[in-house]
């Protein structure tokens, strides 16, 4: 009974091993240069550079630069959030999972989706009403500016760094696979393009790159799903029965299979996934690009719709791949394995249903997808340095706008160089744990501070500081002691911390220490901070005094 219960609890979330799908893993074989794909990709670059040039003319103030002047509509922002969230790895990884085990792929994608309604109900509007440029604005609203800004800027930069490494290495490998370009060339290309978008175009260009990418990805995936359904006469029953008859696992692809390896790790990962999403600086920043709470709510509604629709498409695509890729010897090597690995089934399916031209299109879309994600990350990292550290901590909120913009641009450039160097340094490393670590830190440092600052009157600077630092520290230390790093990378025989993911433990540490050091804080400053909760609460509920859109 107990073991079933644990297994059940584990399934609440997804199997940790699958997290590896978040970053394309393992050896990849460089493919022949794909010219159609390169031409399609050049068209994408030309179009987005045009947008960047247009956006650059409108970027005159910090508000334009960080939040596009609050001028993005709810619908556009919903699309951009979806563009930020649907990564190349989830497109290729989830369709690969459906291809390999059928129904389990659906369970996995649902885990990614259910966090979004909770973000809407719990934090979206309060965040929009209280903040201006970054989530640190909200976390430090009534607390000690200097300490909390440093803490959350540090939390943001750590999350951005790990996420960026995973994306850069994934990008290099994917491009090697899709375009036949050299790893080094691919990483430098991604780094240079992302710096161009962010440096010149700021949030406005980044948003439009994400919107265009979302449209391309959704229409490409829709086309593939329609072609798959056409193949089976638009009959789901036939799609499934034909898949059952050709799949090695037969009937079992239509029921939940063995997705669990270790329940505690799986729960931990699930927590990281749900609450980490609510602590990712580049996702939270998107809520400040709209005019008010009304538009912020609409953004989540549209984003949930697009992301849900995308997961339904990948499910159909995965089944389509069972029929059209798994049975076609053209896509298999001598040993019968899929050319380029299972992660390539969606790409092969593109070729099967749309020929070489469509294959080129889907490859270009996969590359565009990576660019959209890294651009958002870079902007979030740059704003943490220039807005939180430079303008609010060093200059005590009295920085000249021009100086702040200059710092942003220098930081963007520096982040680009760092991202390229890290991408090169980590090429041959095992990076599977990095996306998981980024989410775990977001869930154990950024999220507790942000959530408690909005919901709990008793929170004090001392509590937030201890909780945030210990949460972050626990997440990092436990990850190092976990099997992935301690055994697989450092080569020790036995892991000191037996579970793959730390969030379950590090979140408990963060919340418990925040509570303890807040309630025991009897200082004068602490009682003033508690007193400031009321006006903050009224603003968070009514939007009175919230920063609005900038008219152009």
């Amino acid at each position, binding site marked *: 009974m107990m073991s079933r219960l644990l297994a059940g609890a584990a399934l609440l979330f997804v199997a940790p091993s699958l997290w590896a799908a978040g970053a394309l893993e393992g050896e990849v074989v460089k493919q022949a240069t794909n010219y159609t794909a390169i031409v399609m990709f050049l068209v994408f670059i030309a179009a987005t550079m045009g947008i960047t040039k247009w956006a650059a003319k409108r970027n005159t103030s910090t508000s334009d630069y960080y939040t596009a002047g609050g001028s993005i509509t709810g619908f556009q922002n919903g699309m951009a959030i979806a563009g930020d969230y649907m990564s190349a790895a989830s497109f290729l990884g989830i369709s690969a999972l459906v291809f390999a085990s059928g129904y389990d792929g659906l369970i996995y994608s*649902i885990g990614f*989706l259910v966090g*979004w*309604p909770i973000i*809407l109900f719990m934090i979206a509007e309060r965040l929009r009403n209280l903040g201006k440029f970054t989530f640190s604005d909200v976390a430090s609203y009534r607390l000690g500016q200097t300490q909390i800004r440093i803490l959350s800027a540090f939390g943001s930069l750590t999350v951005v760094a790990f996420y960026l490494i995973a994306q850069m290495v994934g990008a290099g490998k994917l491009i090697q696979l899709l375009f036949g370009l050299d790893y080094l060339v691919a990483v430098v290309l991604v780094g240079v393009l992302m710096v161009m978008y962010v440096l010149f175009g700021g949030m406005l260009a980044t948003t439009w790159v994400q919107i265009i990418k979302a449209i391309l990805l959704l229409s490409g995936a829709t086309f593939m799903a329609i072609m798959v359904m056409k193949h089976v006469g638009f009959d789901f029953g036939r799609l*499934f029965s034909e898949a059952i008859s050709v799949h090695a696992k037969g009937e079992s692809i*239509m029921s939940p299979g063995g997705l669990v390896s270790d329940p505690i790790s799986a729960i931990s990962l699930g927590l990281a996934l749900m609450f980490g999403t609510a602590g990712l600086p580049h996702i939270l920043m998107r809520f400040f690009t709209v005019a008010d709470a009304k538009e912020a709510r609409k953004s989540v509604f549209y984003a949930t719709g697009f992301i849900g629709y995308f997961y339904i498409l990948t499910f159909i695509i995965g089944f389509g791949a069972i029929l059209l890729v798994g049975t076609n010897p053209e896509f298999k090597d001598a040993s019968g394995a899929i050319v380029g690995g299972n992660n390539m089934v969606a790409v092969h399916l593109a070729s099967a249903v749309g020929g070489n031209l469509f294959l080129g299109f889907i490859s270009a879309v996969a590359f565009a997808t990576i660019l959209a994600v890294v651009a958002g990350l870079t902007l979030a990292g740059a704003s943490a340095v220039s807005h939180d550290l430079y303008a609010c901590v060093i200059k005590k909120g009295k920085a000249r706008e021009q100086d702040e913009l200059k710092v942003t641009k220098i930081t963007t450039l520096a982040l680009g160089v760092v991202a390229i160097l890290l991408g090169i340094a980590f090429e041959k490393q095992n990076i599977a744990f990095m996306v998981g670590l980024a989410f775990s830190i977001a869930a154990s440092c950024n999220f507790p501070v942000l959530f408690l600052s909005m919901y709990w009157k008793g929170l004090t600077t001392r509590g937030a500081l201890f909780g945030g630092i210990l949460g972050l520290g626990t997440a990092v230390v436990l990850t190092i002691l976990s099997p992935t790093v301690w055994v697989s990378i450092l080569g020790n025989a036995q892991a000191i911390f037996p579970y793959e993911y730390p969030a379950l433990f590090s979140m408990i540490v963060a919340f418990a220490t925040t509570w303890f050091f807040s309630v025991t804080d009897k200082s004068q400053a602490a009682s003033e901070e508690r007193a400031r909760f009321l006006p903050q609460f009224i603003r968070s509920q*009514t939007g*009175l005094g919230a920063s609005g859109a900038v008219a152009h």
Partner: protein
Amino acid sequence: MYDVVTQRIEQSPRFKELVARRGRFAWTLSAIMLGLYVAYILVIAFDPQLFGTRISADSSITWGIPAGLGLIFSAFILTGIYVKRANGEFDDLTAEIIEEAQQ
């Protein structure tokens, strides 16, 4: 120590009503979303065969398919319900409270 508008809003019974109503609504919807998800997962854990059962003898579609798709749709529908009420009823009430307090 607060400005006068903030004080008036704090004392306004309609503000208390807004906070209570919206809070209840948000927590209810969160509970429904999590409840549906937990129920889905518990079925997978305790009776995976239920989701592996065909919806009718001559169809290859199993109960897991409508359950999973239903969960995706309900996430979308629940956010829609929240946005509709928050952007209508609650925002109207908020506007009235602010107007009243600023007079």
